[in-house]
């Protein structure tokens, strides 16, 4: 039995079995009742060499069609500097586990501290955790946190303008947790303020979840919302798209109590949906209600500044069924991704990324509308790099035509409505090519 991942030689095997008092490997499993022992081979393919494996996946990859991406809707095609993947492949980062032994995990602990610092800066909040699975589950965790902070109240208001995929996850968590989730109506692509005012005053609201930018890419005006929430002792939760926070008003500036969202837009490859990284930041006063892992600064016995996992008494391995969340890991390596990205970009780079996206998106919007086949779905609203348009075209056929020409023409969100996004990755030539297809397309 010689195989590259099993180092045991025949003679070692014999020696080891002798120490264990067994005659064969099978004897180590004697206590498993006969009727449930698995005695055949798995019905799986035969082993593959690296040569065969590479060929296999290369052929499989050809069944995919990478496209020039004008889609967003929760996943954004941003540039990922070459440095990042090299750092992530440092096996001291890649092949380590949760930093339980602080003495030999300062690398992980330190970058998580940097991540927390950067995300609180970006969101304008005071504290943050070591990351969550993704933006949708981070928002669901924020909902549970609001319920837990409110003690006896059980209702959460959520804006209809959140990304439907995020809403679906929040709904699932609410359903099983027994949280009463109520939608605030949408009006012209934005959250209906009078509906919010009416519903938040019902007296039993623990938290209100809104989005910035919202699903349609619109920057909503939340002036006064936090005050109204706080008058009702409800927390304001803001779901945000991380990259955009380099240019738009931050949750902290809006007076939000919790900022939650996805960090994918900070250069993480789209990778067909994951892994990404969720973030959750809040006010210092709520730190002990915050779910997830947290790293804190301290000193070692020699007085050296060092970092440890802290506030662990909130977590599931100690609180068991009384913990406010069952999360027991973080998306650590992806947090490192975001940390290196923000280190390279800095505030200035992030602002430039947003400027490029803004310019390209507004150029595309204008060009599309000038064809007469599209019009802005929510005129008069402000957007950054993503926008919704109504069209007279048959969207399915139009998108199929674009795919033939190598373009992912946004996301269909209704029979006559599409969502399009432009990042710094899109050149003017690519945008003009898309507009050219529109001009020639008749259906």
């Amino acid at each position: 039995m010689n195989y590259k991942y099993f180092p045991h030689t025949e003679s070692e095997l014999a020696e080891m079995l002798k120490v264990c008092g067994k005659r064969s490997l099978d004897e180590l499993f004697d206590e498993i009742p006969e009727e449930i022992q698995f005695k055949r081979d798995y019905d799986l393919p035969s082993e593959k060499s690296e040569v065969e494996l590479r060929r296999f996946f290369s052929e499989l990859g050809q069944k995919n069609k990478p496209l020039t991406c004008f889609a967003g809707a929760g996943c954004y095609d941003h540039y990922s500097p070459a440095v990042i993947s090299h750092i992530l492949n440092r096996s001291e980062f890649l092949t380590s586990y949760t930093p339980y032994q602080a003495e030999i995990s300062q690398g992980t602990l330190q970058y998580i501290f940097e991540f927390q610092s950067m995300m609180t800066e970006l969101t304008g909040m005071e504290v943050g955790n070591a990351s969550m699975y993704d933006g949708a589950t981070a928002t669901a965790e924020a909902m549970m946190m609001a319920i837990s902070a409110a003690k006896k109240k059980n209702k959460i208001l959520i804006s209809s303008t959140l990304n439907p995929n995020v809403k679906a996850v929040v709904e699932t968590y609410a359903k099983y947790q027994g949280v009463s989730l109520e939608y605030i109506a949408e009006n012209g692509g934005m959250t209906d303020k009078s509906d919010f005012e009416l519903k938040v005053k019902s007296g039993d609201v623990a938290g209100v979840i809104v989005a910035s930018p919202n699903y349609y890419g619109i920057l909503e005006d939340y002036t006064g919302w936090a005050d109204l929430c706080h008058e009702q002792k409800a927390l304001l939760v803001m779901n945000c798209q991380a990259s955009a926070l380099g240019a738009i008003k931050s949750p902290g500036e809006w007076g939000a109590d919790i900022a939650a969202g996805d960090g994918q837009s900070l250069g993480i490859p789209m990778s067909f949906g994951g892994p990404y990284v969720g973030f959750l930041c809040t006010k210092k006063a709520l730190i002990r209600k915050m779910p997830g892992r947290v790293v804190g600064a301290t000193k070692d016995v020699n007085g050296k500044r060092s970092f440890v996992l802290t506030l662990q008494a909130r977590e599931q391995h100690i609180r068991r069924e009384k913990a406010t969340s069952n999360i027991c890991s973080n998306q650590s390596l992806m947090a490192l991704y975001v940390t290196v990205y923000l280190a390279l970009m800095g505030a200035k780079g992030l602002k430039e990324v947003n400027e490029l996206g803004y310019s390209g998106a507004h150029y595309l919007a204008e060009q599309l509308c000038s064809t007469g086949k599209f019009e802005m779905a929510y005129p008069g609203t402000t957007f950054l790099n993503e926008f919704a348009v109504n069209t007279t075209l048959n969207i399915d056929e139009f998108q199929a035509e674009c795919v033939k020409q190598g373009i992912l023409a946004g996301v269909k969100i209704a029979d006559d409505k599409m969502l399009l996004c432009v990042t710094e990755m899109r050149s003017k030539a690519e945008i003009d090519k898309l507009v050219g297809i529109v001009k020639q397309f008749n259906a």
Partner: protein
Amino acid sequence: MSKILEGLYYAESHEFVKIEGEYGYVGITDYAQEQLGNVVYVDMPEVDDEVTAGEEFGAVESVKAASDLYSPVSGVVVEINEDLDGDPGAINKDAYANWIIKVKLSDPSEVENLMDAAAYAKSIEH
């Protein structure tokens, strides 16, 4: 050997209550603080919250453990020990002096369901 003060009432869940007139001062016993180790945080209710005998009103956390607090008496919280916010470790220094909440008792006869010092001393002998 844990310290146990005469004149206080004790719950099985290791809280004490010290009665002064119509008020009770509630905290954790010396035995409880020893079991927990260094206390790093005390999760306290708010003034005007109601507490019920035998029900949870907060929690004490050490670095690697957390323990819910159960009120030995019923009533309304009239004061919380805010010093514990800045210095939760005070509980380790003197658990009895550093009470957690002051309760206006709704039913002073409830203390009869609690243990006295001798009975508590016996309950923690193993």
